[in-house]
């Protein structure tokens, strides 16, 4: 998978939010096989010196800063520019939120922010709704990928509207990354089967009872879904199709049975 000017072997992007400890995060990163993880920007906390950047550097993964918490294009753009300073990267996971309770994106603000950041030379990966028209407009605006949600962040509802996701995939000429909603492995496999190029996953892994095991589970599921899509699944049929041939089925005739005509 190629995003912007980078090739990725792994189809799983990991969100670093929600991990109880940095050690767990590091183990999950390694188990997931991911090559890129998201981070956020927050006010420095003189108390706790965070070694997050060091940990991720040790893991050898790229950092994708997000603009989580921004409710306007202005704040999101400024946050992206701060991230560029902080991490010396012009990649950004663009979030412009429209509702505190559902953390769903604000479509018009998102598009404005995307246009500004693209013009400013950023490689923009927008967290968007599952609206196919918005996805295409984001692509037309020059985004390097589109990242539609399956369901709200952290909800674990999986993919609420596979139909829309299919439409997005059909029309997109940039990578489509399912972002938000994955709750467990089968959700991730389904996303890939529907045609997504990758899955971005935070809470499903970081908040699982065993984050490291779930990191591995979702890694396998993403690989399984990608393979299955390539393998060409069987068509759905209304009725059954025997997996054992009928021809040659023996007929057991007991002398006491009523006579049957020979075949």
């Amino acid at each position, binding site marked *: 998978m190629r995003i912007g000017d980078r090739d990725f072997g792994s189809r799983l992007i990991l969100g670093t939010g929600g*991990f109880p400890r940095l050690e767990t*995060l590091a183990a999950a990163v390694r188990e997931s096989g991911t090559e890129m993880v998201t*981070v956020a920007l*927050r*006010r420095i906390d*003189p108390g706790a010196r965070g070694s997050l950047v060091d940990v991720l550097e040790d893991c050898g993964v790229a950092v994708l800063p997000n603009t989580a918490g921004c409710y306007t294009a202005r704040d999101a753009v400024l946050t992206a520019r*701060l991230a560029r*300073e902080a991490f010396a990267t012009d990649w950004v996971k663009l979030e412009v939120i429209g509702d505190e309770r559902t953390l769903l994106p604000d479509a018009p603000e998102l598009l404005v922010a995307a246009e500004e950041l693209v013009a400013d030379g950023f490689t923009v990966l927008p967290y968007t709704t599952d609206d196919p028209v918005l996805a295409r407009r984001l692509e037309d605006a020059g985004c390097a990928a589109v990242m539609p949600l399956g369901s709200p962040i952290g909800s674990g509802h999986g993919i609420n509207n596979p139909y829309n996701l299919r439409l997005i995939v059909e029309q997109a000429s940039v990578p489509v990354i399912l972002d938000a909603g994955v709750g467990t492995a089968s959700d991730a496999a389904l996303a890939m089967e529907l045609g997504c190029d990758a899955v971005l996953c*935070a809470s499903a892994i970081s908040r699982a009872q065993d984050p490291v095991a779930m990191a591995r589970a979702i890694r396998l599921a993403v690989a399984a879904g990608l393979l299955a899509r390539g393998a060409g699944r069987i068509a759905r049929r209304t009725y059954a199709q025997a997996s054992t041939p009928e021809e040659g089925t023996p007929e057991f005739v007991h002398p006491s049975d009523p006579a049957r005509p020979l075949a």
Partner: protein
Amino acid sequence: MTIVLNGEPRALQDGTTVADLLRALEVGERGVAVAVDAEVVPRGAWESFVVGDGAHVEVVHAVQGG
């Protein structure tokens, strides 16, 4: 003079630069970014950029995020 640093008022000597401020905060430079009055202050300008009275300064760094 007084500025607003990360939402809190803070007394500052005249002529303090962004770099001075970061040293005072004992913040390493890695993974850190600074905005003054809703404008990014590029890393290269930290030594020269003098924080004005009443400025709103945001000093941010990386945290875990989805």
